[in-house]
């Protein structure tokens, strides 16, 4: 069921059992999971069904740290959210990502890899990939031509990736949401305030506004914020009527630990007699939908005290015509949509003939490195307000020397392994050559993966939400998505944020059954 909040009589009160704020990937996934339940779900989306500039401008903000993408085009403010310009890369987090690592400050999740694992299957279905199995051996059986480089398995492993079509959640799931009798989607329903009781222990309602000048209140038993890592933090900080420092921010943690993956060209890999390396070919995924990247094993990471990361092989001739991501991303969201669509079409054409006949001797290693959790890397509020009266976000993306050291060591380890196997040599790019230099290259970009601003922890002194994504100190406020990630891991977050959303959804179903009983809103 759908209603346009701009056309609803102003000062209406909308009521439901569960209110999900944000109809991006997490919000839509959760709403779909509640179809055919006896509960009334209110799904609030700030935008409409198409991207428009005025709506994107609500996301505009300053960046005062490391060079980053423009905030107004980084995330898409419409039904379907940022899936609208998602590249479709899927891989799960690794077991080490959940562990407390002595050499990585603030590492460790309050849940284990095994706790999230059962939900990857549901996540894989949502993004329409072939399987939730990411083991190399599984894929090798399907395609014997997937031959790995002869590296030592104790040092490097093949982290497998699958590629979603990519699923655009807006068009793909619109019908299902609109037809669902118990899901009430409101578009043009921008949350501008989260109102709690005086003791800041329960959320009573959220306030919504739109450019038509309409204001409404939404009441529910339970609220789930699924607005993306920047907006989740911004909304908690801006909702300061009852809690002057912002909701859930007693320990000044909301907005801190902002993370992205560090994505950048790092070195050249020369393999004079490279033949069949289809497993790593970036363009073949249009056909096999799978490829591997090289990653350090858990024991090697522990030995070298590095972060988790992967490196993909890109034929030199492709990289010659490729500009760094950070230089190509427009501040116009519509342009970014067009850019991604063009890239996806291009991807299908990037076929160089049969891989076994294709000769390429020089590759660029493109590294995707975990960012170490850093409290100084954060989202804060600006004095400037957006058009609906909410303070804009200020991003201060801050990186550390461990981040750079880890990138460098991954190249060295790959260099050692191809050297040992007598198949190649690695040459680091100039910006990585001096190990005493902690400066960053201007070609460094993020992966458009915002994470960590409402991090999950065992206790409120170390995080904003608990192991069930519930905000500490509040009985009925939950965060969904990658804002809950305490560490970023090496993998793109989409698949894992969906798995975490389904885990939260399971928890909430138990919660509402226990807490609502017969008091639910009858649909």
């Amino acid at each position: 069921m759908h209603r346009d909040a701009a056309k609803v009589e102003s000062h209406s009160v909308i009521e439901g059992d569960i209110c999900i704020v944000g109809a991006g990937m997490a919000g839509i996934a959760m709403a779909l999971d509640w179809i055919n339940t006896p509960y009334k779900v209110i799904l609030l989306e700030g935008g409409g069904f198409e991207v428009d500039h005025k709506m994107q401008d609500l996301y505009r903000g300053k960046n005062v740290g490391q060079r980053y993408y423009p905030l107004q085009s980084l995330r898409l403010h419409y039904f379907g959210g940022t899936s609208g310009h998602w590249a479709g890369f899927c891989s799960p987090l690794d077991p080490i990502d959940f562990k407390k690592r002595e050499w990585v400050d603030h590492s460790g999740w309050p849940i284990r890899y095994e706790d999230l694992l059962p939900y990857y299957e549901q996540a894989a279905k949502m993004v329409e990939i072939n399987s939730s199995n990411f083991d190399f051996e599984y894929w090798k059986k399907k395609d014997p031509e997937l031959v790995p480089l002869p590296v030592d398995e104790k040092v490097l492993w093949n982290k497998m990736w699958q590629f979603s079509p990519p699923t655009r959640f807006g068009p793909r799931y619109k019908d299902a949401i609109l037809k669902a009798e118990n899901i009430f989607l409101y578009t043009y329903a921008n949350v501008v305030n989260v109102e709690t009781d005086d003791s800041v222990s329960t959320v009573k309602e959220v306030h919504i506004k739109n450019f038509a000048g309409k204001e409404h209140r939404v009441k529910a038993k339970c609220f789930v914020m699924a607005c993306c890592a920047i907006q989740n933090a911004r909304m908690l900080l801006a909702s300061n009527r009852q809690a002057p420092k912002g909701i859930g921010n007693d320990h000044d943690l909301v907005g801190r630990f902002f993370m992205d993956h560090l994505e950048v060209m790092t070195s050249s890999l020369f393999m004079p007699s490279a033949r069949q390396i289809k497993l790593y070919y970036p363009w073949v995924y249009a056909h096999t939908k799978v490829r591997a990247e090289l990653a350090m094993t858990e024991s090697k990471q522990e030995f070298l005290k590095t972060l988790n990361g992967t490196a993909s092989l890109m034929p030199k001739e492709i990289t010659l015509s490729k500009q760094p991501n950070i230089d190509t991303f427009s501040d116009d969201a519509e342009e970014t949509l067009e850019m991604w669509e063009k890239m996806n079409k291009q991807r299908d054409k990037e076929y160089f003939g049969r891989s076994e006949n294709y000769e390429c001797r020089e590759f660029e290693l493109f590294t995707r490195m975990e960012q170490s959790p850093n409290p100084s890397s954060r989202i804060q509020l600006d004095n400037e307000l957006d058009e609906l009266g909410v303070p804009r976000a200020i991003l201060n993306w801050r990186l550390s020397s461990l981040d750079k050291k880890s990138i460098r060591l991954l190249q060295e380890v790959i260099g050692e392994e191809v050297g040992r196997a007598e198949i190649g040599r690695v040459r680091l790019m100039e910006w990585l050559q001096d190990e005493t230099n902690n400066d960053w290259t201007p070609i460094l970009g993020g992966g458009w993966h915002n994470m960590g601003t409402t991090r999950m922890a065992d206790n409120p002194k170390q995080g904003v939400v608990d192991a069930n994504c519930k905000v500490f100190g509040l009985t009925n406020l939950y965060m969904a998505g990658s804002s809950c990630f305490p560490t970023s891991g090496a993998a793109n977050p989409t698949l894992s944020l969906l798995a975490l959303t389904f885990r939260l959804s399971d928890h909430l179903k138990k919660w509402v059954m226990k807490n609502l009983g017969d008091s639910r809103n009858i649909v």
Partner: protein
Amino acid sequence: MNRRSFIVGSILSVMGAGVFSFVHWIRNSGTARALAQPRFLSQLCDSGTIQSLGRAYLKLKPDEKKDDVLLNDLLTEKNRKDFFETHDIIKAESQIEKKIQCDFATDNIVVVQGWVLSITEARQCAFFSLLNT
């Protein structure tokens, strides 16, 4: 000089003379110069780059800027003796290749101008640059 010192001194002199004559021979031997040719790297780089890598390595390790030091490290004493007696360049090259592989396996690497090299092949580059100065 006591008897013990005399013997030790004599042995060292003989060894020194051996190394000197070996180095002298190797400098003037066309085939032996092949020892200074990093086999794998030569497939990727021209001789100018190899010289440049060698010079850069010697800047990092100025103590090694001597033929004999580099040679000592390229071949073990036993292999060096074998090579001096047999002049079997193929065998010597294969011994160096094994040493390079072993370097990579044991983290005995050095980053020179961005190249992740085995210490042994970096020394080959250095030796190559010395022979060509």
